[in-house]
């Protein structure tokens, strides 16, 4: 029997980034096939090509043995491919029924069509045990059920091949179990499922075969029953080529940051951070490894004062940070800065710089209160000379303080941000994805800077999805998954497999 999907030598490049390189594997019809890999492994790009959002630069795509050109999502749907995205394409204040009907209403009056579609949907729900009431409004449904609505939409459109992109990222344990039941039923009906995930447990639980991707290529394609989590983890994270960068002997000082029982629950009552406990001492780099979306961003927001925690204690050099009793975090980051906390944000363009300001104007963002003379006038002479010094020390190119910062490359922008935060001599430095969108040469220099800070006695919290970076910089490593710390190891204990397991959601054992 022909494979449902076959990729033959698919390659795709975005500018300087080779997102997919010579990807070849096939997906058997009537099976559940897992595609696993870390951030940036190329899984999402590959699926986007399958669903018609992008076209491959080279290579062939075969659906049921026939070569196909899928130029947009409509053609994908016509070919029988359906996709359940990470961010649902649902209109929240409308019913399930209306959401499914949208775009295919049939006529001006909805009444007749609604009855027909309702019958069809109930039928589908029964067949696949979906337990969705077509008359419910999306906003009244839990995330797990909303996801089933997306699946329902695809089945209604007669999808034979269903792609699920990180489906369990937003689900509870029970919801995940229900989802898997649905997928099994789907498979029994002869449909094909492609499951994109980074969670090893799920792969082992439900897939028939799994393809592992890393760095844009396929590093392994195995039958699930014939492999185990260690092998998968090893394939997924690979052997980091960089070892630990040279640094002064590990001799951490006093505790700078102490976090106890930190919890964060959002407006939808979902627990984003679960009872975090850790500390960071002077002169050490603690790295938080983990696939993005597991609470790391929220943790950085809380520690930098941009967001309030739901409960827990955070002390900085022994003194509790003043988040208690506040209604919101408006103005709080300034207080945290005064306490000696520096922050290089994950989302550079959104949080760390003002795009339309010049490099010079961005060079003191966050520290504007310290640079006033009489009448609140900014000491531009001082600012300019500081800025020029920064540009020189960090080798920013072009070294023009008056250039709009949006015109600098990502790497140079990051240098400015780092320079700014380092210049303020913080006691605690929070760094999020420091080398995202940054060229190799700059990566090395930024890493050197961080190590220099560490050697000088600064406490550093590094959040990174790049395991190589974690390996290169960390003294201690914490792994986060689903909002909790699943494990902690010293860098000497670094074991890619073990970390892969922890990242994949398997708790320390």
């Amino acid at each position, binding site marked *: 029997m022909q494979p449902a999907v076959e990729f033959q030598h698919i390659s795709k490049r975005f500018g300087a980034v080779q997102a997919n390189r010579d990807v070849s594997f096939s997906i058997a019809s009537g099976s559940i096939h897992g595609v696993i890999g870390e951030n940036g492994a190329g899984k999402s790009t590959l699926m*986007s090509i399958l669903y018609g*959002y*992008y076209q491959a630069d080279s290579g062939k795509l075969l659906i049921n043995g026939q070569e196909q050109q899928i130029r947009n*999502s*409509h053609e994908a749907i016509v070919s029988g491919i359906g996709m359940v995205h990470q961010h*649902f*394409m*649902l*209109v*929240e*204040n*409308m019913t399930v029924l*209306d*959401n499914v*009907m*949208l*775009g*295919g*209403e*049939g*006529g*001006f*009056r*909805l*009444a007749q069509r609604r009855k027909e579609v309702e019958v069809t949907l109930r039928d589908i729900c029964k067949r696949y045990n979906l337990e969705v009431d077509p008359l419910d409004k999306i906003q009244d449904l839990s995330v797990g059920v909303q996801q089933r609505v997306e699946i329902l939409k695809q089945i209604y459109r007669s999808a034979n091949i269903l792609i699920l992109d990180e489906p369990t990222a937003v689900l509870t344990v029970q919801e995940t179990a229900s989802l898997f039941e649905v997928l099994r039923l789907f498979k029994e009906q002869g449909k094909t499922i492609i499951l994109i995930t980074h969670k090893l447990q799920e792969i082992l639980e439900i897939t028939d075969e799994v393809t592992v991707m890393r760095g844009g290529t396929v590093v392994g394609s195995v039958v699930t029953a014939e492999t185990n989590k260690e092998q998968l983890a090893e394939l997924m994270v690979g052997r980091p080529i960089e070892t630990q960068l040279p640094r002064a002997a590990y001799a951490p000082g006093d505790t700078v940051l102490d976090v106890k029982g930190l919890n964060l629950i959002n407006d939808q009552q979902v627990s984003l951070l679960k009872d975090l406990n850790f500390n960071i001492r002077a002169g050490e780099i603690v790295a938080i490894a983990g696939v993005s979306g597991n609470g790391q961003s929220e943790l950085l927001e809380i520690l930098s004062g941009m967001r309030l925690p739901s409960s827990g204690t955070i002390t900085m050099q022994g003194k509790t940070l003043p988040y208690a009793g506040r209604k919101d975090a408006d103005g709080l980051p300034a207080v945290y800065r005064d306490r000696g906390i520096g922050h290089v944000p994950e989302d550079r363009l959104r949080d760390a710089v003002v795009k339309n300001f010049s490099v010079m104007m961005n060079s003191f963002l966050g520290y504007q209160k310290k640079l006033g003379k009489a009448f609140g006038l900014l000491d531009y002479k001082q600012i300019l000379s500081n800025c020029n010094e920064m540009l020189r020390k960090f080798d920013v190119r072009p070294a023009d303080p008056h250039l709009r910062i949006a015109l600098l490359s990502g790497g140079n922008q990051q240098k400015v941000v780092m320079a700014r935060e380092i210049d303020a001599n913080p006691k605690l430095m929070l760094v999020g994805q420091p080398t995202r969108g940054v060229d190799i040469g700059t990566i090395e220099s930024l890493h050197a800077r961080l190590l220099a800070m560490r050697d000088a006695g600064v406490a550093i919290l590094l959040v990174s999805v790049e395991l190589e970076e974690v390996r290169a910089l960390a003294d201690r490593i914490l792994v986060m998954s689903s909002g909790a710390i699943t494990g902690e190891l010293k860098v000497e204990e670094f074991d890619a497999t073990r970390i892969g397991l922890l990242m994949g959601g398997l708790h320390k054992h």
Partner: protein
Amino acid sequence: MFDDFQFSSILVSTIRNAPVLMFAAMAGLFAERSGVVDLALEGKMLASAFVSAAVAFTTQNPWLGVLAGVGVSVFIALIQAFVSITQKGNQLVAGIAINIALSGLTFVLAQFFFMQGGRTPDLGDARLFDIVLPGSAAVANIPFIGWFYTKLIGGHSVLVYLAFGLIPLVHWVLYHSRFGLRLRAVGENPHAADAAGVNVERTRFMAMICAGVLCSFSGAYLSIVQSGFFLRDMSAGNGYLALTALVFGNWRPLQTALGCLMFGFFTALQVQIEGVVFPVIGKVPGSLIQMIPYVVTVVVLAGLMAKSVAPKAIGVPFVKSR
């Protein structure tokens, strides 16, 4: 004191005041539910008021006037749509700009064509007819029922009945027609609508055209039915009050209409209170009473904003993203 109050005439006045707001609010409903902020209700109202009065006088036919008003209002709505949707410009600024521009232009044109100090001549009899319900003469003298039938429910201008009749129609179109479904989707989650194959920009254009048509009746009502002529700036902030009714009504037809009735009630009350001598306070000055709708608006906006939920994608021009 309470003999001065004519409660019955307050109710009748309420019914007669509400349509101005109702037409405009329904117009705003279509625009905003599709995701376009419509601050130019005031301008469309004013333009339509002028054109319908002018054409009605010139042709001595109020229906031609109404038709002309519709044409002008739709034209302005299309300009708005071009600026907001195609050019992806600032919708707030566009609305304010149109209001200011039309405030000036309507006066200038009125002056140019009629030379009466920026107003149009009195329509006299060339106004729209009132609907007298069948059998009114027979029941007229029965206490309460007579008043109820002949004055409260019956005896209003045809446009009044149109305004009230529109509410269930708008409700049906919005919730039970294909157009309404797509319109709501486009205002809540344009990306989802786009993914489902709906043309977001075209749907919004259609919504603006509907807004143009509906808002025109508001202007025609002002000039042809209520006063019989066009007067400078006669919209007097009603366009903004209509927007408040939308917030008050959570962008739903029925609740919004209730909000319009509420404002109509306050206006009617204000006319009544004018002459009344209250104990202690004495007479309440007209200007202060005229403030009431605007103060109520601020209170509504201050209090309800937290609970009132605007269409999610409102004010944000749609850009296809991947």
